[in-house]
């Protein structure tokens, strides 16, 4: 189990640190369909209220550190969720 956790942890950090450098910014499948069928302008995006909108930390100008900061925040939030949910699962069976 430890080896799997180390492998997945390493892969996660590699994705965040290096993946953002090579990520494509082309529209995704749904965006492309919306554009070709003429309903992409129906998306209500509004003002970015989050400092991390679109996976970039708005207070950092340069793009790699801004994306890596946002990515690490998301990874930390999901890890935190896993800990909280894990406790809930244990408690749920009275253990």
């Amino acid at each position, binding site marked *: 189990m430890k080896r799997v956790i180390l492998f997945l942890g390493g892969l996660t950090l590699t994705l965040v640190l290096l993946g953002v450098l090579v990520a494509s910014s082309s529209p995704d499948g749904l965006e492309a369909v919306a554009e070709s069928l003429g309903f992409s302008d129906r998306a209500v995006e509004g003002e970015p209220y989050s400092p991390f909108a679109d996976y970039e930390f708005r207070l950092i100008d340069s793009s790699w550190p801004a994306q890596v900061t*946002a990515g690490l925040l998301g990874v930390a939030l999901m890890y935190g*969720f896993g800990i909280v949910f894990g406790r809930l699962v244990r408690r749920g069976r009275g253990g």
Partner: protein
Amino acid sequence: MHIPDGFLSIPVWAALDLAAIPSVGYFVRRTQRSFEDSRIPLLGVLGSFVFAAQMINFPVVAGTSGHLIGGALLAFTLGPSAATVVMTAILLVQALVFQDGGLLALGANVINMAVVGVWVGYVPMKLLGGRGPNLRGFAAFLGGWLSLMAAALLAAVELSLSDMAPSGPLFASMLGIHAVTGVAEGLITAVTLTAIQRLNRSFVLPSEAA
């Protein structure tokens, strides 16, 4: 595949928000009943991994991109009930913190990717997983492909019910693009699963002995 706000009509997003809440609640309770204690550390590890993988878009065809959704991957490693809960948490964080996917459309995205995508993706491994290593690799690939197609099909149904575009072209283009992206989803799912199985044979669910 994350539907933004504005693409769905009020009855469609409202009905799916209402459907998503008890569905996810049901899978939380199912996870509490049946999740193996030894896998608890994986909840955070796999949630983080799939979140990171979803950030990285790769080019698909003709100027479009896609990224791993990871429904089948989570289902094979956490079991489908916990996978639904973890995927819901990913979608919630993406909508609230990163403004990816609509807040009103969150129920639709949860039903498409966290509920239907996860459970459809689990079916091939459930049926073929006990029949030897080659079929397990194929089941992982097929699970990834099917989970993406199921989510794309549902998204097309929801967009069609919302009168965003004529049904014919909508279904054809949503399923067409995602049939291609699904090949990448299937390959990434199969390669990751094969690597994990090399490290720990009993890791991928349902385990080979079962």
